[in-house]
């Protein structure tokens, strides 16, 4: 199977569903859409097993002018081409695999929606774009996927652009605003990405990733500041897409979309694109310690920011959203420390457990008829036992409790931080503690205690279509960690070794005992966090989390942006509009001032014939007199 089948299958699905929306009645559109993703998953699997040490590189057709290396110093046109190595292969598996599960889940979840088929069309579109992103052999093509997923994300966040059943004005505005915000903030990052590409082109004359990676000689002699700058530019792009500081505020708002969207796009796949970009550009970042440190610190601080903001959220999805921000921070921390494989590992496990948590949250929301406030939940473990179990697995996984997936992946990141940068390690550790706490809070508020909501509702587990994906994801969140068991735990670094064939693995020489110690500390911290949550639960004080409004308002960052950037740009825009009227007016003014003497002409034209004669004779006298004077003065 050629690589282009991977994005093409979902694209076909998209086209079918968007053009022929009315041909598909009931849930058939959903099944069709899911089928295409499933097929893509099969292709991904086939290609995964067909991988060798030589990456697959398949080019299709000419696309952009002059952006690749040609022979003889003349630049060649850039082709659309796909590139599959271990890194992208893992990504395709995650995208199609998790994507397929979420598609199936959505069939049940979105069943009642008036625009059911369109939803699947957009989901398919998203998957296609995401696959292009990870399979691209050049930065511009990656950018296609990059902005494509942004576009899909925009459309899906704004899927309920007119509110519930098209009749909720306030919701409509909120959802639409959230979508728009996501797109615009992504665009800010995208500009950074573009500038990065421009600089890469300026330095290396190509934007094809294998060509760049193959230029070790040139890379080695390129001046460091340039490479640092390239990496910083790319970082801006990555930050935008992955919701890192400072471009983070769109991500929590993005939860306005339907829950499967949150699971697929804003947790499992799209937001990890930034991590993928940096991992993909490892050949630059390895040469740019300064920029890498920026990456790591952006990640570390975002992890902290997300965790702090999650502490006192009341929306069941918002907690998960801030948790996502925080977890993405971990991944950035890892790539910043050049632990690409650790980051990808966490990316994979995070995809499992975060998708699981979101889908579980979705099931709850569904069961409670669109209720999202955790303060109005509680005690659902009894009525929704299956969902409860999978949620618990998710919580344990994300908190880093051993044997669950998150334990291994987070441990890897903390270990590399421990080896390289103690302040970041401490931040990571603190975030792990906070994570355990807020996830514990989430768990206890939703599942334990007394039911605090509308008593007329009778929540129950979802149907099989809804539950099957949850089960599979729960299984993956449980065992996913074993993909990459570190050696001190007796594992073989399977994923590291696999990825190591494509991206560099920097071994950290840490004593096994130290590593044991670090791991134990991490587990202890996680248990402490959960314990604190449990303690507060018993005190029935969980409904109001720590830090109060400071946390609830997400450190006031969003308000700051709205006040400064949002209003600022509006003011400037109006100002410029006025200026433009001024330009127009100035031009008109010039014209009318030039034209003003026209009045004088009409006044001059007084109608008195003797005045006319005066002009004539005076004119004659002036002309002759001037020349006479000149002749007297100096001769002709």
């Amino acid at each position, binding site marked *: 199977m050629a690589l282009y089948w991977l994005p093409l299958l979902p694209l076909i699905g998209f086209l079918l569903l968007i053009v022929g929306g009315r041909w598909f009645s009931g849930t058939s559109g959903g099944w069709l859409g899911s089928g295409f993703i499933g097929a893509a998953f099969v292709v991904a699997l086939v290609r995964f097993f067909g991988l060798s040490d030589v990456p697959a590189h398949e080019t299709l057709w000419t696309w952009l002018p002059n952006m690749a290396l040609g022979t003889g110093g003349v630049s060649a046109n850039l082709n659309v081409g796909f590139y599959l190595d271990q890194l992208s292969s893992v990504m395709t598996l995650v995208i199609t695999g998790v994507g397929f599960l979420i598609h199936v889940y959505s069939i049940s979840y979105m069943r009642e929606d008036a625009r059911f088929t369109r939803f699947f069309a957009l989901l398919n579109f998203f998957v296609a774009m995401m696959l292009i992103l990870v399979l691209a052999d050049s930065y511009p093509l990656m950018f296609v996927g990059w902005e494509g997923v942004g576009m899909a994300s925009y459309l899906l966040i704004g899927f309920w652009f007119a509110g519930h059943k098209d009749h909720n004005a306030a919701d409509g505005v909120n959802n639409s605003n959230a979508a728009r915000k996501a797109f615009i903030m992504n665009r800010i990052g995208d500009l950074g990405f573009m500038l990065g590409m421009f600089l890469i082109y300026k330095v290396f004359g190509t934007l094809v990733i294998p060509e760049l990676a193959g230029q070790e000689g040139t890379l080695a002699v390129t001046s460091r500041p340039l490479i640092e700058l390239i990496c910083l530019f790319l970082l801006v792009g990555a930050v935008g897409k992955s919701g890192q500081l400072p471009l983070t505020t769109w991500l929590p708002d993005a939860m306005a979309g339907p829950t499967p969207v949150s699971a697929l796009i804003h947790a499992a796949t799209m937001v990890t694109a930034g991590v993928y970009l940096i991992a993909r550009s490892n050949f630059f970042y390895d040469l740019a310690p300064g920029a890498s440190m920026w990456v790591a610190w952006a990640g570390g601080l975002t992890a902290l920011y997300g965790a702090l903001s999650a502490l006192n959220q009341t929306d069941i999805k918002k907690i998960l959203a801030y948790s996502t921000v925080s977890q993405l921070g971990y991944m950035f921390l890892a790539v910043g420390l050049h632990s690409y494989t650790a980051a990808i590992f966490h990316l994979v496990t995070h995809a499992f457990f975060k998708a699981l948590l979101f889908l579980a949250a979705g099931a709850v929301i569904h069961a409670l008829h669109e209720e999202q406030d955790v303060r109005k939940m509680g005690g659902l473990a009894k009525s929704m036992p299956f969902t409860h179990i999978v949620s618990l697995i998710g919580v344990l996984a994300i908190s880093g409790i051993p044997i669950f997936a998150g334990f291994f992946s987070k441990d890897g990141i903390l270990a590399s931080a421990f080896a390289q940068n103690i302040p970041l390690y401490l931040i990571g550790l603190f975030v792990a503690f906070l994570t355990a706490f807020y996830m514990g809070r989430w768990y206890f508020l939703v599942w334990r205690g007394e039911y605090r909501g509308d008593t007329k509702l009778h929540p129950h587990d979802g149907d099989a279509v809804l539950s099957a994906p949850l089960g599979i994801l729960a299984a993956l969140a449980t065992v996913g960690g074993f993909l990459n068991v570190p050696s001190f735990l007796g594992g073989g670094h399977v994923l590291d070794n696999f990825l190591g064939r494509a991206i560099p693995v920097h071994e950290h020489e840490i004593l096994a005992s130290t590593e044991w110690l670090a791991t134990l500390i991490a587990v202890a911290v996680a248990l402490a966090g959960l314990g604190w949550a449990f303690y507060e639960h018993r005190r029935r004080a969980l409904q109001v989390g720590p830090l109060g409004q400071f946390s609830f308002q997400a450190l006031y960052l969003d308000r700051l942006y709205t006040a400064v950037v949002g209003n600022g740009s509006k003011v400037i825009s109006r100002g410029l509009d006025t200026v433009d009227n001024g330009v127009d007016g100035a031009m008109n003014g010039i014209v009318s001032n030039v*034209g003003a003497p026209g009045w004088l002409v009409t006044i001059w034209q007084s109608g008195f*014939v003797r005045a006319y004669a005066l*002009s004539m004779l005076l004119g*004659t006298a002036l002309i*002759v007199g001037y*020349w006479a004077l000149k002749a007297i003065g100096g001769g*002709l």
Partner: protein
Amino acid sequence: MNTPLILPDVALAPLLPIAITLLGAIAATLLGFFLPRRAITLISMVSLVLSGVSMVTLWNGGLTSFGGSLQADNVALSIGLIILLGSLMTLLVTYDSAARAKLAFPEFDAMLMYAVTGTLLIAFSGDLVTMLIGLEVMSLSGYVIATLQDSRRAEEAGMKYFLLGAVGSAILIYGIALVYGATGTLSYVGIRDATAGLQVQNVGLLVVGALLLLCGFGFKVALAPFHQWTPDVYGGAPTSVGLFLSTVVKVAAFAGMLRVFGGAMQNVPAWAGVLQVLIVATIVVGNLGALFQTNFKRLMAYSAVAHTGFLALALLGNPATGGPALTYYLLVYTLMTAGTLAVVSALQRTEAAFTLDDMRGLFYRHPAYAVALAVCLGSLAGLPPFAGFMGKYLAFQAAFQAGYVGLTIIAAMGSVAALIYYLRPAMLMFMPDRTPAREYPGERTPTTAAVVIGVVGVTVLGILPNLAYGLVANPAIWTVLAGR
């Protein structure tokens, strides 16, 4: 005085075109007592056509008569043909509009034909006296036809025209006298030869004479500040008279300027510098004045002033490029101005005013006239594919190549202003308007014929300028403007 008597060199052939129009004029004068007025007009038209035919047969002949006082070179013939064309269009318009304009006297046709004779004489002139005679015949007849309509407006216009014209003539004649004093000759060739290399004794006298001539001509062609009669006369006189004055008379005056300044005085200093200043003033005054007009006829008068500036631009150029440019522009100017005023004449209810407001929505009442008027206005504004563009382009090129870059730019900016005042009426015509028709409803086929000539002319000459320009483009005929 022992010089043997030499028989004057009286070749009749070059005289023929002028003689035919003169005959037409005399016929109109005499037959006016017996024939209806329209018959007279027809006779006049026939004589114009015959004169044209005679000109065509003289083409490339290069004949002269009266010892060079009359020269039927290609310059004279091409300008003569333009004059005849303008006159013919005038007659076509008057054929049916004269009655409405209270102008239907045989004397009108007679005076018109005398004026045509005078204009031809200017074009054919070989010395200053011939030119002066032609100019005066033209002017005097012009005064009469401007006044002929029995209305206060026409009388006022005529009076102004007459008084100022007399002053202008006096200045011109005084200039002739001074030039004669400086060179001792009145013939163009003589003046040219006498001034070659500036060997004249009294340069000061010559320059003052030249400048006075310039002022006198400035009046006739309406260069600022000698232009002030134009709006009042063109606006006050009947439309058909305005048409005649702003086309034929202006063409003839330019022909005189071309002969005198392009030919006889080409080596005389100072006038070109002064002309530059006058051109700037003219372009500014004409265009700005036109911007504020609401009466379309007055607007066209100011437009005529502005066009004088553009036309004079060609005069500044070397005769080899300026001459053909001027001729072509004059032809186009005649066509488009006559076409425009013919439309006005066809549509106006009174002679007093055809305001811009009257033009609103004209397209929906008289689509063909509106389109024709729009074509003419577009051409006046210098928009391709109409011939006005080519004229303007040629004038700019002539001035530019003679080194007057700054002047060309000023002229270009003037054209922008011109566009505005042409565009406003042109576009008003296309704006939907529901008021009932206010235009003259009667029969007006001959006027329409004049309109057609104008519109077809500017269109064809715009797309295929070479039809006319190719005839006059040969530089050889422009280097001997003064005669051989």
